[in-house]
């Protein structure tokens, strides 16, 4: 027995009306009766019955017009209308259908048939009701989801835009909702004035693809600001993603470390399509090939942080892209692919037009716009031409310690694995007066440390770096010797003294190497070669004083400040 319905009967013939009303009531429904179309419409409006039995030919307003009005009032809800008729002509039946009729019942009435029709219509009505409810529910969930995405995006934009994507040497293209395609683009200045840039592509879509972006960005910005190097950041991101992401969710990524002082870029690519090094003179296009598994796949012990180093000239550009470009698919099921991209590169004349040309090529290929494409291009520019904001510090800077000394010796194993710079920098930046010089301090310490490690401890010959081949050889030797390192040390002696109007920091760096004549090297480097000579010249330029003690062991630099400065 189906639910009790309220049924409107519109029939001008009193005997037929009475008969129908009785049948319907006996079947357990509530019947409402009208003797013409006008009455029927008024009664429908007032009582909102769930089903209508409608005679076609009635005085005042016929059944066709009444049916049309009732259907209009019912709106999305299905109110089935069964036309009561002995009309046999096809044309009249068509009129019933056109007026919104759902079925017919012929005279003489048969109560079994009537019951069957009412039940069938009731099922249809409830089905429609369910569909409407579910549609509303889906719409509601969708609204909810979009709202969540808006909130997530707003929060994430705050995090992502804390970086330096707006720097004039960065050009990028990304859909505003790229985050929900799993695409992620981050850039941040290092304390030394260099720049880290990361393009990532998480597996999947929607919130699951976006969720890993937050911890990744946090690690990227936090560690970059503290002076950690590319490999340390990669290791930390990989370990963190491996720990928190479910199996099968990972991040294809490329990380670039730009040094404007040294004019090199370090590149690590794990699972992104080939990036390109585009020379300013257009002479060559060096592919930056993925040599690693994506981030978040390997256990920390198995992770490989080996990166490649490329010397750059002013105006050279590094180009990275997400797989949305290569995997764009046209209607024949073909992929856009590497070769089409290469053709765009070859045809490009104006670097500034490259992104637009890639987009146009995709549009021509697919016939519609592609919205999951992320492109980024970073140019090598003059050091100092970028206007970077001040370093950001946590902590209020009260109670800064002013009168102390400390010495550190980093030995064998530690030199292979540990980068002491962030550690030292954190310590020194507890001194409020040194903070305005944080960038210079970091650059100088980094330069002195790499000098002590590479030339003193590892005994590398920097004159190797005179051409690109030697450059590669230098870095090859560096990693081989570092891997074999058992002994040797680098010492930092930090000496902080208060002065009348501020204070002074004296840093002395020594190493286990055979010593060197710093002054001679500086003079030689100033003359000869720009790839390796920048280092010590830079130290002299950035620090207040730079001296080489008589014994030839190490180098000493000084920074001073005055209170209130």
């Amino acid at each position, binding site marked *: 027995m189906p639910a009790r319905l309220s049924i409107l009967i519109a029939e*001008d*013939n*009193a*005997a*037929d009306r*009475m*008969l129908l009303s*009785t*049948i319907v009531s*006996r079947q357990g429904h509530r019947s409402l009766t009208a003797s013409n179309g006008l009455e029927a419409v008024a009664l429908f409006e007032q009582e909102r019955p769930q089903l209508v039995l409608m005679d076609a*030919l009635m005085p005042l307003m016929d059944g066709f017009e009444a049916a049309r009005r009732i259907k209009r009032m019912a709106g999305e809800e299905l109110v089935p209308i069964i036309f009561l008729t*002995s009309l046999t002509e096809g044309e009249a039946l068509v009129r019933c259908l056109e007026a919104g009729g759902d079925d017919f019942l012929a*005279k*003489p*009435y048969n*109560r079994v048939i009537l019951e069957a029709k009412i039940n069938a219509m009731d099922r249809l009505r409830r089905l429609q009701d369910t569909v409407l409810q579910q549609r509303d529910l889906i719409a509601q969930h969708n609204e909810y989801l979009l709202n969540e995405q808006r909130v997530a995006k707003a929060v994430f934009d705050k995090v992502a835009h804390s970086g330096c994507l707006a720097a004039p040497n960065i050009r990028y293209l990304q859909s505003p909702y790229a985050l929900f395609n799993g695409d992620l683009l981050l850039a941040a200045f290092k304390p030394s004035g260099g720049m880290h840039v990361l393009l990532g592509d998480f597996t999947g879509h929607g919130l699951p693809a976006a969720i890993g972006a937050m911890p990744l960005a946090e690690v990227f910005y936090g560690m970059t600001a503290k002076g950690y190097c590319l490999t340390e950041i990669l290791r930390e991101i990989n370990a963190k993603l491996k720990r928190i992401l479910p199996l099968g969710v990972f991040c294809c990524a490329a990380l670039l470390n730009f040094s404007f002082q040294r004019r090199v870029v370090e590149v690590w690519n794990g699972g992104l399509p080939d990036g390109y090094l585009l020379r300013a003179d257009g002479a060559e296009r060096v592919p930056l090939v993925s040599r690693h598994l994506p981030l978040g796949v390997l256990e920390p012990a198995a992770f490989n942080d080996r990166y490649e180093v490329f010397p750059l000239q002013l105006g050279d550009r590094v180009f990275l892209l997400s797989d949305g470009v290569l995997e764009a698919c046209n209607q024949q099921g073909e992929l856009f692919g590497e070769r089409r991209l290469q053709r765009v590169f070859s045809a490009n004349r104006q670097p500034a037009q490259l992104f637009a040309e890639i987009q146009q090529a995709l549009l021509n290929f697919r016939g519609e716009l592609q919205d999951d494409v992320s492109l980024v291009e970073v140019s090598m520019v003059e050091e100092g031409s970028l206007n970077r904001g001040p370093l950001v510090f946590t902590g209020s800077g009260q109670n800064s310690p002013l009168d102390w000394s400390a010495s550190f010796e980093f030995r064998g194993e530690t030199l292979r694995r540990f980068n002491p710079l962030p550690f030292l920098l954190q310590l020194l930046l507890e001194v409020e007066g040194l903070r305005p010089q944080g960038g210079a301090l970091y650059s100088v310490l980094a330069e002195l440390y790499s000098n002590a490690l590479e030339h003193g401890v590892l005994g590398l010959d920097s004159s190797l770096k005179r051409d690109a081949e030697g450059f590669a050889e230098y870095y090859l030797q560096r990693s081989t010797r570092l891997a074999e390192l058992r002994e040797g040390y680098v010492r930092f002696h930090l000496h902080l003294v208060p002065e009348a109007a501020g204070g002074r920091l004296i840093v002395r760096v020594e190493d286990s190497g055979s010593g060197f004549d710093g002054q001679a090297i500086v003079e030689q480097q100033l003359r000869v070669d720009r790839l390796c000579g920048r280092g010590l010249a830079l130290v002299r330029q950035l620090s207040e004083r730079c001296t080489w003690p008589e014994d030839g062991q190490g180098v000493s630099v000084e920074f001073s400040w005055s209170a209130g400065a």
Partner: protein
Amino acid sequence: MSAIHLDSAVLAALQDVMGDEYPLLLDTYLADSEERLRLLRQALHEADAQSLRLAAHSFKGSCSNMGAPMLTALCKQLEEVGRRESLAEAPELIERIEREFAIVRILFKAERQRYRR
């Protein structure tokens, strides 16, 4: 009772459906039918083929429901006449309908009294 005037199977079914209200249904039908006949004559008088057709159609419907096959058939013919607008055939058909209704009415009155007892 002649089955051509009133179908006793239909009456049995109506009685089953209507229960105590069966006599009321019969009364309603008879009163309504008088009104339909009046409308038929008026339409003929006014030579209004469309009204004639509608009245015949409506009368036909209730006659079929009430189990009066002969009357239903005559109404159907008249409806057709109205549709074809051949009013010349109408007077004779209406007269036959009135005669048939007179028989049906007597039979229904008897049915009603039989039921009362």
